[in-house]
């Protein structure tokens, strides 16, 4: 693909990712400058999706490293297959077969290497997309190790020496900003902050993702969700995925417009917390939500 902002935008659209101009330009810059793209934002705004779409755009493999507390190099980079090595040693002791000789040389060969996502991305022949998801969940030591890998795209395996990336992968890191990431890591990345979408953008997303939805219903859903996010101090604001689920639920109930009953039946789809449901009932309620939506919904966004 000829890399340009317009082409990238068109490709994002083609893969069903409704992105605003800033998102496209930032992704373009990361690709152009060969730098990792760090995407921060609340849960459910489409951070991970960017990596998936980029893999689609470049028709390449998506390699995913899901981060969690306690993740270490063994799980992220490589590990020797200890059990297989042990069997080999046992076999070499009892067998006279030539193949089982020279065990020591063979024990650290390709056959016994368990490749984890980072190594896989470095050794890949085609430029892959490496998604390092929820980077804010790892320990600081691992973060430091990671930014070394990301700056040089090479790793050292003592038995083999240094391995340099055949192709520098497209790296996408995502973070829910639960923890402040180190300056070192941030400095090595191109930064993008994804916030909840505007009602217009969400309307386009619903239309693209929920087949068979009426124009009126999709507009009402997008306005309602935006209104809820803005007016209620919820523990967990509805994500884009929940908006889509809500629209799908309403379509499944054959609704072509919102009604208080429909909202009541489907509250559990959009709120994932009892406190939030109570807050909605106390401070807003289905009737008031619908009146607000019909009067134009939330127009002002920070």
């Amino acid at each position: 693909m000829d890399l340009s902002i317009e082409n990238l935008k068109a490709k994002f659209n083609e893969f069903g990712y409704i992105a605003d101009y800033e998102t496209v330009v930032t992704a373009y810059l990361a690709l152009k400058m060969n730098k990792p793209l760090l995407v921060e934002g609340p849960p459910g705004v489409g951070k991970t999706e960017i990596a998936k779409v980029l893999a689609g755009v470049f028709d390449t493999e998506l390699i995913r490293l899901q981060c969690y507390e306690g993740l270490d190099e063994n799980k992220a980079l490589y590990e020797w297959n200890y059990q297989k090595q042990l069997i080999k040693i046992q076999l070499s002791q009892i067998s006279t077969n030539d193949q089982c000789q020279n065990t020591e040389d063979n024990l650290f060969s390709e056959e016994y290497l368990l490749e984890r996502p980072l190594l896989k991305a470095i050794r890949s022949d085609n430029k892959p997309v490496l998604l390092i998801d929820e980077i804010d969940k790892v320990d600081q030591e691992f973060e430091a190790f990671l930014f070394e890998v990301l700056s040089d795209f090479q790793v050292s395996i003592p038995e083999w020496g240094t391995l340099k990336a055949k192709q520098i992968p497209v790296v996408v890191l995502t973070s829910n900003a639960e923890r402040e990431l180190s300056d070192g890591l941030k400095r090595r990345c191109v930064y993008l902050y994804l916030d909840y979408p505007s009602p217009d953008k969400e309307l386009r997303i619903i239309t693209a993702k929920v087949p068979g939805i009426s124009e009126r219903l999709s507009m009402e859903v997008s306005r309602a969700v935006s209104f809820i996010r803005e007016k209620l101090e919820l523990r967990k604001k509805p994500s884009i995925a929940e908006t889509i689920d809500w629209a799908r639920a309403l379509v499944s109930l054959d609704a072509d417009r919102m009604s208080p009953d429909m909202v009541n039946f489907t509250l559990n789809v959009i709120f994932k917390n009892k406190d939030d449901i109570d807050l909605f009932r106390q401070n807003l309620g289905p009737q008031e939500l619908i009146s607000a939506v019909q009067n134009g919904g939330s127009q002002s966004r920070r």
Partner: protein
Amino acid sequence: MSTGNVQNEKVQQFVDHVESGEQYIEKNLTRFMHILRHLGIRISSAEVVDAVKALASVDMLDGIQVLTAFKATLAKSPEDRLILEKAFRAFFVTPEQKAERTEKRKEREEIEAQEMQAAEEEISYQVEGPQGEEQRDVTIPLTDEEKKTYSKLPENQKKRLNDYLNKQFQSNSVNNPEELITSMIKSSLNYWKYYLKLQDDGPPEINYTGEEEIDEILQEVAAELRDDEQLYYKDIEKITETDMPTAASLIAKLSRRLATRISRRYHRSKKRQRLDIRRTIRHNIRFGGTMFNLKYKTKKIEKPRIVLICDVSGSMAKYAAFVLQFMYGLSSSVQEIESFIFSEEIERVTDEFKKPQSFDITMTEIINRSESWGRGTDFNKALAVITGSYRHLLNKDTFIIIVSDTKTLNAEKSGARLSDLKKKVKDIVWLNTLPKKVWSSAPTVSIFSRHSRMFECNTLAHLDRIMRSQMLK
């Protein structure tokens, strides 16, 4: 030619352009970086190079693309992005807009000069010369800053000061009172300077550069931030009831982050797992004793115990809503937390916060039950109870958070107790609601800051900054 080469060529062209002497873009770019740094965004040289490379990759005539290139390479948080956006809009303006801004600044300066002139004239008094000589006007020698303070005073205060001058000292020929008057006026203005400063809400103080053109931009951005993010930078005591729900949700979010941050930093990260020999042998008997499957000891994540001690005495009354929201926010996100409130006595309120009920009900229950609200402060007594009756809570995994303005009886004794307490626990963090600018004049601050890590915390921006910076080491 590869993409990398094209990019390098563009950077080279850019560098050539710099060397050619025109330097229009470069000068602007450097000045822009300078402004961003003065607005608190940390930008390294490597990031400046990245920004230049990014600019070479976008259409320089497209404002949105240029702004996005800056945001992508220089801003590293939503707050940075907001500041950068405002600085960009203030910096990259048309010559007409620039001229208009300079015009406005000049107007402001003129008004200020007039006000200072007026101040000089107003603060004068008449004194009668010796042996029946004619009365003469005496002007008090004020510094520019003092004049500025005077011009900012409310009208009634100006009038009071003048009346005082004229009534008390007019025609006083017995002793030459000039020195006395000058010192009286100066100390009064000094008090007002301090008071007005306290009243002045706003984003963290900006270091002005002294260069008029840059300072203009800094002023404009600071003023805009103040308007937009008012709640964020407002002293918590001044947050109105209407704004409270939004503030409460922000406090809850920040206190949750504080909790996560503490637990992450203090849980023991054992990267090398320990082999469980007993289980490994038992499990591998089936393989004839060959250690085929290794069994590791289960990782035990050690979350710290948090002890939260909040001051609810009279001097802290204005922060009561904040303190309660903070306690509620922390309690709902951390399991191992013990909460106390204190004034003259200390009370344990852990159970109230542990109940799964709304904030309003919790607050009503605590206020109705407790007798601590609005009384005097005896931190010494509070610490005595904590180290005595609750000593089982104190060990090397305990993290203590104190929210107080440090104003207490028996400060020295309290300091000694705090020092003892520090030896027993992991760490003590003190969130001080007293503005930092008055810390030097409050002796209790220096006593307690010796034994704890003290942070200014009277706006949501402060609380956020505590979380963001590397302070919680």
